[in-house]
């Protein structure tokens, strides 16, 4: 039972991280109709920046804030130098150009930080276990990830649903000509949205960094998960991304944790240990396939274009 609670929290935490990544992706796609494969690179850069700045300043929080700022700036720079020239192209061009960026970032990281991964050690006050239920301890750091991510999700919700800029973003997601007609500086809005997406990706990366190693290519697998999430949730929909992210995070985590035991009950133990990892990695894609068959536009499609 205790294990179940712990794994549910792990699932929630992973789901929230995925949401941060997917939110940026879906915003950029929803409002600019731009497919950004290099989103995973920004996630990676967030983690590398954090590892560097924390080591440099000796202060975890300060280092993370600096890393966040650096990813934001990098995102804006990227948009300004390269990506804004691609908005009028088709999706295939987006995919290829940002694929090129991934190649670039991976090797740039290898050149700067070396091929070996980095570690981002936690300060001692974040490593203590916290008692969340009688007899159930949970790492403070993972709890704080949940807290921060929920806070950011709430902020994002308020910004998108309640503010003027959020109104423009939503209007842009459903009708791009309209915001142009309103006399809004679209270029600036696009740069801002892209920067926001980059910062969210960076945040996800730097928060994940202490749990996993910081390494080259760390953004790629999780990027594909984020794509699965926005396909399931419906492209352009923040709400859909949130629901789908939690869902995917839970299924992935719980599947990995409990599927081997479940399988062992029906199969021989060697067969189970062979099949379980494959099956738990496949669960997500299976889920996506089912969603696509039933609702090709995703579960929570954004307003019709």
């Amino acid at each position: 039972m205790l294990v179940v609670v712990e794994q549910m929290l792990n699932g929630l935490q992973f789901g929230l991280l995925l949401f941060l990544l997917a939110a940026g992706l879906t915003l950029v796609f929803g409002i600019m109709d731009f497919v950004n494969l290099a989103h995973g690179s920004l996630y990676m850069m967030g983690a590398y920046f954090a590892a560097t700045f924390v080591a440099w300043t000796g202060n975890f929080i300060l280092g993370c804030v600096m890393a966040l700022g650096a990813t934001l700036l990098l995102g804006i720079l990227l948009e300004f130098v390269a990506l804004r020239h691609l908005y009028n192209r088709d999706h295939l061009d987006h995919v290829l150009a940002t694929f090129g960026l991934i190649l670039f970032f991976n090797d740039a990281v290898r050149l700067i930080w070396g091929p070996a991964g980095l570690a981002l050690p936690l300060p001692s006050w974040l490593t203590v276990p916290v008692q969340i239920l009688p007899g159930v301890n949970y790492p403070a750091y993972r709890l704080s990830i949940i807290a921060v991510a929920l806070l950011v999700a709430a902020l994002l919700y308020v910004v998108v649903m309640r503010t003027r800029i959020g109104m423009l973003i939503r209007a842009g997601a459903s009708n791009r000509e309209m915001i142009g007609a309103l006399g809004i500086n679209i270029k600036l809005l696009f740069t801002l949205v892209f920067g926001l997406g980059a910062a969210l990706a960076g945040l996800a990366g730097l928060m994940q960094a202490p749990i996993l190693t910081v390494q080259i290519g760390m953004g790629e697998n999780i990027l594909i998960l984020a794509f699965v999430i926005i396909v399931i949730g419906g492209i352009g929909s923040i709400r859909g991304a949130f629901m789908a992210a939690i869902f995917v995070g839970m299924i992935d985590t719980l599947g990995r944790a409990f599927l081997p035991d479940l399988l062992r009950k029906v199969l021989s133990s060697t067969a189970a240990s062979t099949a379980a990892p494959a099956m738990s990695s496949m669960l997500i894609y299976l889920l996506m396939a089912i969603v696509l068959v039933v609702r090709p536009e995703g579960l929570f499609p954004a307003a019709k274009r």
Partner: protein
Amino acid sequence: MKSAFNLRTIVVALVVAGLVLLPVYSALTGKVFILTMFTRIIILALAAASLNLIMGYGGMMSFGHAAYLGIGGYAVGILAFEGIGSGFIQWPVALIASALFALVIGALSLRTRGVYFIMITLAFAQMAYYIASSLSRYGADDGLTIYKRSNFGGLIDLSNRTQFYYVCLACLLGGIYLIWRIVNSRFGLVVQGVRSNEQRMQAIGFHANRYRLVCFVISGTICGLAGALLANNTDFVSPAVMYWTRSGDLMVMVILGGMGTLFGPVIGAIVFLLLEELLSQITEYWAMIMGPLLLLIVLFARGGIMGLLARFSRG
């Protein structure tokens, strides 16, 4: 128009002649590595040509085409591992397995369009990648060594470098001939019509998605053959051959050479892989140059090399 056609034809003829004569050059100069390198280029050119069939002619932007390289390769590898060495069994199995995978993936993915399709095919290929990574009997992440190449009795000996090279070249040229016939056939015109305007094709009486699916399966099958060749070439198959960056490479080859042109993918594959080779000799960090180069190609060289040739000869 006429001269553009001629310049392209000349380039293609030179490339084909070069590929046919390459083993002679290699034998005369004793540069074995050239033969090995071009064997790989030819195999990946076949994979790119198969991708071009759905991407260039069918308008289906598959980002998971490397999956078939893996499936074809694993068909050969697993059968060899289990003691079935005959190519007459291995290769048909590779083709059928790829066709079946394409059928399932296509039937699901073709319910979607545009960027959804790109992402779905990507996700399914990743799924195949994870399945391969968990095949602990067949080496899991580390891959599977193939100790004996596919055996075709006394007919051909694949362990002979030159013979294997010509088998690959024959597969490439045969594949392109097949694609040429398909593209100009009734079926091919329907597929291209659907790319151009699906609603219209539907209105004049074509079940658009069924044609798309058949095209998707043909393309996957051809790529499965490339997979079987690739496994024989490296004597090894691992999940890495279907990693998504490999799918990206194939897309780049198609675009670079010229999407929707018959020989574009071949030229794209040659240029891309030679460039990779060249850059990696200059610097360990070749991808730092290749990445921005891709960006520049997308920004400034629409229509790929074939497009440039056409423009160049038009003045």
